[in-house]
């Protein structure tokens, strides 16, 4: 058992892959957390947003667009999908959104894999061999040191924020301090080790530019999404969302346009899901329509519920627990 675990720790490529996966899982789960955790929207079609985001990004990259423009376009198109779904359902009882999202995600998948769409999407064969970000990037030593510094800063900041949030929760529950401390120590040691592995991978960038580059990018994007969402959720806009979640009628009575807020939440969460899905397409370096079955939606739900819906640090914790189990 111990040897087995140790062999895992020595497979450094795998660990970098794992860190990337967890970051990507966190990104698109944060989107669902905005829907369900903060606004109370029953989105059972997260895979639909992700399919649109991933396919748009990949197809635009194939058409020659640079990756950073392609991913933004993918996110925007996923947001448009949210607009379409939201427009017909958000004024009605909450079950309608569940029905329509689940339906739209299955229809998106059927359309993508259909024979008629084959000239564009290559149907069930999927798309491979598209350009990956930072593939041609060969940073100098100074750039690499810069990237390592940025990475460390971002990770350090994230650990501080998430750790503080989670520690506060543990403390308020009044657990025995030594159990918590022991656990924290173990997790801290593992985290420290992962951090050095990631730094090493950036340092040896040339050895595997795609892997190191994706790891770097996904962690940075996760940090941006996380901080952005935390700020939004604590802003007046986010407080309205939480009010809608708790009681729609109260928010309406206070003169808030509930429909508009819900629509914005659905679109923003969809954008985030699209961006996350583009990263996951890059990481696997392929897209298949059947990657976006409803199972994906339910895995995302598991992550959000596991970490505690309505908490962004919790969602990331959910991805940290869920990712290594399924991979």
């Amino acid at each position: 058992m111990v040897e087995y675990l140790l062999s895992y720790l020595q497979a450094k490529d795998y660990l970098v892959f794992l860190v990337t996966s967890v970051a990507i899982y966190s990104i698109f789960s944060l989107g669902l957390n905005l829907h369900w955790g903060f606004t109370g929207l029953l989105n059972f079609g997260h895979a639909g947003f992700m399919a649109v985001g991933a396919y748009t990004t990949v197809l635009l990259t194939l058409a020659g667009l640079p990756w950073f423009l392609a991913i933004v376009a993918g996110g925007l198109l996923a947001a448009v999908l949210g607009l379409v779904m939201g427009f017909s359902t958000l004024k009605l009882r909450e079950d309608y959104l569940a029905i329509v999202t689940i339906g739209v995600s299955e229809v998106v998948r059927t359309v993508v894999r259909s024979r008629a769409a084959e000239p564009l999407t290559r149907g069930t064969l999927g798309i491979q061999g598209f350009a990956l970000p930072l593939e041609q990037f060969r940073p100098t030593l100074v750039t690499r040191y810069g990237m390592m510094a940025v990475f460390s800063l971002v990770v350090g900041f994230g650990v501080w924020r998430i750790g503080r949030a989670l520690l506060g929760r543990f403390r308020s529950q009044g657990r025995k301090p030594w159990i918590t401390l022991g656990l924290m120590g173990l997790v801290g040691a593992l985290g420290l080790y992962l951090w050095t592995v990631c730094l090493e991978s950036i340092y040896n960038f040339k050895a595997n530019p795609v892997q190191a580059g994706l790891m770097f990018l996904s962690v940075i994007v996760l940090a941006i999404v996380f901080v952005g969402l935390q700020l939004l959720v604590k802003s007046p806009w986010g407080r309205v969302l939480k009010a809608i979640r708790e009681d729609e009628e109260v928010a309406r009575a206070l003169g808030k346009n509930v429909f508009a807020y819900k629509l914005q939440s659905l679109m923003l969460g969809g954008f985030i899901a699209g961006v996350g899905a583009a990263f996951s397409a890059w990481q696997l370096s392929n897209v298949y329509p059947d990657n976006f079955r409803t199972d994906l939606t339910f895995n995302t739900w598991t992550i959000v519920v596991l970490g505690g819906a309505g908490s962004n640090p919790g969602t990331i914790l959910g991805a940290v627990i869920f990712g290594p189990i399924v991979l």
Partner: protein
Amino acid sequence: MESIAQQIPQLLTNGIALGSVIALSAVGLSLTYGVLRLSNFAHGDYMTMGAYFTWTLNLMGLNIWLAMVLSAAIMVGFALGAEKLLWGPMRAKRATPTTLVILSIGLALFLRNGVILAWGADSHQYKLPVESALNLGLVKLPFNNFLVILLALGAIALLRYILQNTKVGKAMRAVADDVDLARVTGINVERVVLWTWVIAAGLTALGGSMLGLVEAVRPNMGWFLILPLFAAVTLGGIGNPYGAIAGAFVIGIAQEMSTLFLPVEYKTAVALLIMMLVLLVKPQGLFRGMM
């Protein structure tokens, strides 16, 4: 290649057959929604289970029609069990519609994987003597589709009789209209709930068995029909079983007709499109109000 004008009558008949299957199950979905306020996403998987029980009994040498009736009985028992274990306690706790939706999706996943565990993931056919298709001049009607339409009409007539003429049916309509008012009037709501499940599960299992007759018996068969089902129920005005029947025929015929100018794979998209249009333009459905 036949001309479009020649295809239309054939597609129309196919649409009516598909509509009959959808109608049988949509009635159940509409009843559970109207009486129990439950959007049951596991409804499609009740159909699947019904078809699998029919197939198993049929394989054991039972006559197919007898197998269908027995399978419906088994599914009624199953639905009553689910009511006692799951939905009843949840209603007693005053669970929100959201909780119920999530629970029903969980139940759907559980049942689908249970079917795969018990019967495997392959698709099957009933053991039936091969009947030649009826030649009705303009159209060819496979014998099975003919029976499906006939059975659906019979079941719908029976439903109408129960809802309009029996005491239980009248009580059901009262509960759907206003639970508290019905209770004050002295209607035993719990009994009505049980009867709703009996009718809904029986018709749904029958619909599933017939779907197996028209297509194949496979673990995903019901799940893929959940979208047309909800579309039919929404179109007919949620909670209105007669509306659901009308909606089912509209959806069934629209899906088949769409193959004239759309690839076959886009059939489900047609149901979704109709549903979203209805929600956008007339969310209360075509036939307003309860029963």
